[in-house]
Structures are given as structure tokens and as C-alpha cells.
């Protein structure tokens, strides 16, 4: 059997695939976090809980309304995004201009409340969600057996990330968003209703998290903790990529997924700390992150 530094190649490729899949979730989550922090100045600690809410929404849509995976992929981001808009209108908007600590504490509290509510109703055991029929099975690529669904997750995530990037970097609306991130009062003085832009941006960031949650439902068990476990890592990724940088978040998301997986192969003991080592190293040499703009 072929080996790489004494590691069997199939194991190596298997981990690499796992890394890309985790990276897909990291990328979609860090993208939303990064855009939200850039425009609102809010460290959105409720992001993980909203990702989890997306997964539960898919489960509930199926269980209660008989709506399958594809319906959920379209509806859950809308439903959870609308919930996000409510959070922004009712709670977050009172915190703009205050110290970041207020937003951090509020969103952490919200995350605990939401997770508690789901635990209360569904327990913490975890619920199973089936892979959609169209994506059952796997294909043998020669060097690795690729389950269709996992390939689709990476593909969908890439498409979603690229569309988001294009929306922000290449459209009039995106230019307004970037401008408001730099200097909101001036954008408002041009006649643009910045508060509406802020609300929609938060809703869209939350919808991205929910979309990731739906994609995650068939892979991980749907449980109230699934977001909390992810969010700390995703934060480190946003810091590494550079707060407010879109491409930075996506690249560091996928990149870190792969680094984490390779660490699992070569030095498993470090696989859960490697992200924080990366973060410290990046902050030492590039305090604004790998892709961050120096302010």
C-alpha cells in the first residue's frame, strides 16, 4: 500500500476530504461573522446557535410539514434570516457605537437562551436527518471513495461563498455595504438608508449560517450543541483571515479545515489546538490578519 511519511494514502485522502467538508462549514460561518463584524461592529456570538437553528429548522420542516432537504435548503435560511432581522431590530440596534463588549455579552446570552430552548424541547441526544435521495451513494474516484452528499456540500458551499463574494465585491449594493463599513454617516449623507442596509446585512449573514446548518444536518447529528462546538474555531478563523475580509474568511475557512485534518493524520494530539497556534502566529506577525486591511 502507498504511504506518505508512513501514513497510508487512503487514510490521508480520507482526512483531506473530511478537512474540506469541515472547511466548507468554517467558510460559510466565518463569512457571515466577518461581514457582520465589519458593518455592525458586533461580535456575533449567537452565530453558532443560529447555525444550529438552521439544522433544527430543516428537521422540523421535515417532521412537521413533510418538506424535504431541498425545500429546507431554500426555506430555512429565509425563516432563520427573518429571525435574525428581528434580533437586529429589537436588540442589537441599541448597541451600535458602544464598546464591543456589550454586543459580545448580549449575543452570548442569546446563544445560551436559544440552545437552552432547543435542549428543553428536543433533549441533547441529537436527532437523525437523512441524506436526500438524490445524493445517496458514493463514487470511487480511484484514490478515494467520495460520498455524493459530501461532495455536494463542498460544491454548494463553494458556490454560496463565491456568490456572496461577487455580491459584495462586484455589485452596487456590495459597494454600498463596503462604503458603509468604512464610513456609515457619509454613506447616509448620500441619501442611502444605512439602518436598512445594516438590518439586511445581518439577516443575510444569519441566513448563511442557517444554510450551513441545513447542509450540516445530514452529516452531524442535529443537536443543540452543534453550533457551540464550532463557533470558537470559526472565530479564530475570522481573526486569522482578517476581520472584514471576504476572501480572507473563505480561504482561511477551507485552508484551516485542511490543516486541521492533516494535523489529525500526522500529530492527532494537536488537532484541536492547532487553530489557536495558527491564530497566535498570525497575530504576532500580521495583527490585522492574513487578508485584513491595515487600519
Amino acid at each position, binding site marked *: 500500500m502507498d504511504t506518505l511519511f508512513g501514513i497510508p494514502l487512503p487514510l490521508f485522502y480520507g482526512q483531506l476530504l473530511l478537512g474540506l467538508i469541515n472547511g466548507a462549514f468554517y467558510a460559510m460561518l466565518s463569512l457571515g461573522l466577518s461581514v457582520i463584524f465589519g458593518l455592525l461592529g458586533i461580535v456575533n456570538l449567537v452565530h453558532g446557535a443560529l447555525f444550529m437553528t438552521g439544522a433544527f429548522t430543516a428537521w422540523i420542516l421535515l417532521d412537521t410539514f413533510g418538506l424535504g432537504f431541498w425545500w429546507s435548503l431554500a426555506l430555512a435560511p429565509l425563516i432563520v434570516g427573518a429571525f435574525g432581522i428581528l434580533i437586529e431590530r429589537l436588540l442589537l440596534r441599541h448597541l451600535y457605537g458602544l464598546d464591543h463588549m456589550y454586543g459580545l455579552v448580549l449575543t452570548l446570552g442569546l446563544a445560551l437562551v436559544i440552545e437552552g430552548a432547543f435542549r428543553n424541547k428536543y433533549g441533547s441526544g441529537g436527532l437523525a436527518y437523512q441524506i436526500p435521495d438524490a445524493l445517496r451513494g458514493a463514487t470511487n474516484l480511484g484514490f478515494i471513495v467520495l460520498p455524493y452528499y459530501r461532495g455536494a456540500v463542498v460544491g454548494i458551499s463553494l458556490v454560496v461563498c463565491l456568490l456572496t463574494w461577487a455580491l459584495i465585491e462586484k455589485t452596487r449594493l456590495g459597494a454600498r455595504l463596503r462604503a458603509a*463599513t*468604512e464610513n456609515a454617516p457619509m454613506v447616509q449623507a*448620500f441619501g442611502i438608508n444605512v439602518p436598512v442596509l445594516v438590518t439586511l446585512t445581518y439577516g443575510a449573514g444569519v441566513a448563511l449560517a442557517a444554510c450551513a446548518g441545513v447542509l450540516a444536518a445530514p452529516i452531524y447529528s442535529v443537536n443543540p450543541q452543534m453550533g457551540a462546538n464550532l463557533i470558537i474555531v470559526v472565530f479564530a478563523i475570522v481573526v486569522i483571515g482578517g476581520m472584514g475580509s471576504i476572501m480572507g474568511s473563505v480561504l482561511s475557512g477551507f485552508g484551516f479545515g485542511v490543516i486541521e485534518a492533516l494535523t489529525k493524520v500526522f500529530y492527532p494530539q494537536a488537532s484541536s489546538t492547532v487553530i489557536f497556534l495558527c491564530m497566535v502566529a498570525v497575530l504576532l506577525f500580521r495583527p490585522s490578519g492574513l487578508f485584513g486591511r491595515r487600519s
Partner: protein
Amino acid sequence: MLEVRDLQAWYGDSHILHGVTFDIQEGEVVSLLGRNGAGKTTTMKSIMGLTPRRTGSVKFRGKELIDARTDQVARAGIAFCPEERAIFASLTVIENLLLPPRIGDGGLSLEAIYELFPNLRERAGGQGSKLSGGEQQMLAIARILRTGARLLLLDEPTEGLAPVIVHQIGRMIQSIRQRGFTIVLVEQNVRFAAAVADRHFIVEQGKVTDMIASGTGTLERLQASLRI
């Protein structure tokens, strides 16, 4: 066109404007002159609703704007070009130029803007932050000419610029006034203000204390009024 009455403004606890009052007719170019810290910038910002708190009356074309949000003031037809120019570094030159939405008819076409500012055409694809100081000022003004706003508030458009560029901006102001724009200008450069504006308001400690119309010996009268 614009009637400002007893305009007062605060930054937190500091009371900055103590009742600014002045009028501008359609098609006029007027200047606000005064020492550093007199409240000229604050006057412009509070017309736009950019100060945390303001009272009094700001009427534009008969419409009261004192309770309007900043974007509503802009939509009523007033555009503001700030002292620091506020070119967005993460936007290209053309994105900066197209950022302000059209709020009415009568704005300049992109072609007309490029005729006034040929440099911007060459720089269109570049990053806004890479422009020289003069080019940034031109972009900052060009940006608000497209929108259809008919009253322009320009805060120190010549600040820190080389004499040739100052001259170019003077010509540009003449050219846009011929197109019917109304302009309020804040200036440290009294000579420049005397040359381009029809009337001058002297701002002192958060109030308008004097009005001087251009005529013979304007510069001397302005200098006397400003005690410089």
C-alpha cells in the same frame, strides 16, 4: 432656497452652535468664513443632520428638515462634501463616483463629469485610496454632481492643495454654478472665497455675526471682519 434659523448643535455636552441664521438664494455661491473652531464644519454637518443633536429650523425649498434623518436631508436635494473628503479606500474610483444614488433630475452625466475632471476618467478602475490629494478632492466633488442634488455644501475644497489645483477647482466651481447649482463653501483661503462667492457669512463662536456681499474691496473688508 435654504433658510437656516437659530440653528443650535451639540456634541455630547458641548454646545457648539448657538443660533446660526442665514439664507441662500437659488443659484448663489456663498461662503462661510471664520477662525479655526468657529463652527463652520458643524454648521454644515448640522444642516445634514450629522450632529448628534440639533434644534432650530433648516428649511429647504420651503420644506422643514430639522427633524429629518440624514438620508432624508440628502434625498431632499442637499449634498455634502466633507473636509476630509471621505473617499472610500475599499472602493475603486468609479465605484466611489457611482456610490451616491440619484435623488432627482438635473445631475451631470458621467460624460460631463469626465469633461470637468479628465483625470478621473484615466483613474476610473484604480483604487480610491491611490489618488493624489487633488484628485481625491475632485472625486469627492464629482461624486455629488451626478446625483441631482441642487445645493452643494463644500467644506474647505482647497485645503492642502497646490495653487494650480486650487485654480482648477475655482474654474470648476464657476462652471457648475453656470449649470445652476447653488453652493455653500467653507474656506480658510479668504482670497479664494472672495474670488468665487457672491456673499460671505462670518461665523464666530457658533453664530453668524456678519454678512458681506462681494463688490469692490471685498477682500479687505473680509480681512477686517475676520481681524486677520
